[in-house]
């Protein structure tokens, strides 16, 4: 036993005495290399991916509807065809569910510019298109809002100067981005009324700095994914032809 201990000691002393040459950093070189099609794919990796890819492809490539045009979230300054399509489709899909559960209608739907993740191209809309448009697993929620949250919401929409998509709300702002007029479901805003605003859970929890959803009167979770609502809507629609309209305008018009 003692002998072993001695050997350990010997080890330690030898290692500590053993001087390695000291290395100093003399040169740094940095660059970026493009991953291009001139690189040969490693077949072992590719064949590992193949079963996953094949399973996905079967689901993703099924056609849901036809798009008349190509639509992007940057098509308009205050509202866009693609944004309007998304919130209008969500209203149509979610309202019957909400009404059945609560007896109320969804007064308006609100998403953000950032919710629209990609473009819809002219031609066939597949499940893959919808996954790219809405890759997140967010669920639709309905929030009961009163004054002053409705005011904060309108301020947010005026001041962010972005085409944040909304349905059933109409906004007019002046050249200083100050609110001129607002209606919900065609009626002036009633300061005593509770409004049922549909959005998704990411925004409800303060995403994109939407701080006005909380605290609130109540929250209803529909357990209905935004993506699934869009897929269900598109399954019913043969063709989509959304338009930029007058739901959010600046006066005088440029």
């Amino acid at each position: 036993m003692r002998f072993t201990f001695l050997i350990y000691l010997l080890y330690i002393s030898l290692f500590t005495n053993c001087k390695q040459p000291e290395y100093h950093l003399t040169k740094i070189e940095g660059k970026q290399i493009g991953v291009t099609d001139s690189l040969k794919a490693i077949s072992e990796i590719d064949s590992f991916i193949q079963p996953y890819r094949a399973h996905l492809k079967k689901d993703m490539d099924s056609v849901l509807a036809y798009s008349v045009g190509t639509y992007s979230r940057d098509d308009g300054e205050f509202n866009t065809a693609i944004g309007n399509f998304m919130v209008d489709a969500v209203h149509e899909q979610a309202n019957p569910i909400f009404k059945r559960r609560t007896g109320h209608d969804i007064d308006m739907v609100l998403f953000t510019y950032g919710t629209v993740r990609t473009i819809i191209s002219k031609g066939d809309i597949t499940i893959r298109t919808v996954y790219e448009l809405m890759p997140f697993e967010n669920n639709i929620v309905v929030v009961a809002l009163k004054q002053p949250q409705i005011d904060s919401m309108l301020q947010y929409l005026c001041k962010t100067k972005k085409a944040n998509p909304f349905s059933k709300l109409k906004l007019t702002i002046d050249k200083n981005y100050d609110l001129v007029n607002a209606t919900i479901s065609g009626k002036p805003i009633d300061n005593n009324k509770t409004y049922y605003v549909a959005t998704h859970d990411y925004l409800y929890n303060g995403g994109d700095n939407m701080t006005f959803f909380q605290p609130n009167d109540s929250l209803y979770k529909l357990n209905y994914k935004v993506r699934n609502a869009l897929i269900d809507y598109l399954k019913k629609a043969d063709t989509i032809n959304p338009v930029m309209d007058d739901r959010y305008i600046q006066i005088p018009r440029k």
Partner: protein
Amino acid sequence: MKRRDFIQQASATTALISLGGIGLHSFSNKPSAKQITILHTNDVHSHIDPFGPDDGKYPNMGGVARRASLIESIRRENPNTLLLDAGDIFQGTPYFNYYGGELEFKLMSMLKYDAATLGNHDFDAGIDGLYAQLPHAKFDFICSNYDFSNTIMDTHTKPYKVFTVDGIKIGIFGLGIKLKGLVDSDNYKETTYLDPIETAQEMTRILKTENACDLIICLSHLGYHYKKEPNKLCDLKVASLTKDIDLIIGGHTHTFLPKPTVVKNSEEKSMLVNQVGWHGINLGRIDFYFDSDKNKSANGTSIIV
């Protein structure tokens, strides 16, 4: 019997070592050079397949299988290579929605990634979803400024790690972005965000002073720079407000840089900040050359970008 075998073996090795020790002493005057290669990606966002030929932005670019062959050829050229990722491995293609990140981690393991830090989107399936995929990752997650102690991720990440490659000690730590307002609180649960600058100072002290690292690398998901938000913390700020970091490998802002950025740190020493866009379009490569020749090292470090 066994113990005796061991003792015999041990003494034999000792003899060898002592000889080797003499050998090393006699060698130590002869200068030699070493090269460490750091390869890196960021914000790959589940982009496993290359972009198609009709893609409007990156036709025929990217793809894990192609990246693998690039990495393999660089490793053949210099086996003293580390492969790192700066986060947002998840979210962006249906592969993530369908398989929850399993394929991403499995492929990164096949490519022999050495370490990664976490990005905000790596919490998109919730902290439980991230935890569930950990068995598929054969590399370390290095997070220095997320305190996971009240979460399921507790003990499954490291605040720093020291890699010894060809005798060179490389210390790596990781900085994550503030999750509040960016990630649903239901998804990150009780993860606590710690100040990145204070954390960086603590980590560099541990790595430089306690661990005597020759090289310190920060994997960051803070973002390169925010033009519209000059007060927001970013990699360029971390670089200039700290010392002893040799390289910050960044992510989050999906920044394409024409070349790595040279930044002067708090001691006026030059270091590098790099980021290579997103979606696996590019691979970053930084080579560090070491020399034991005192005459060469007396001239300081030259940076070629």
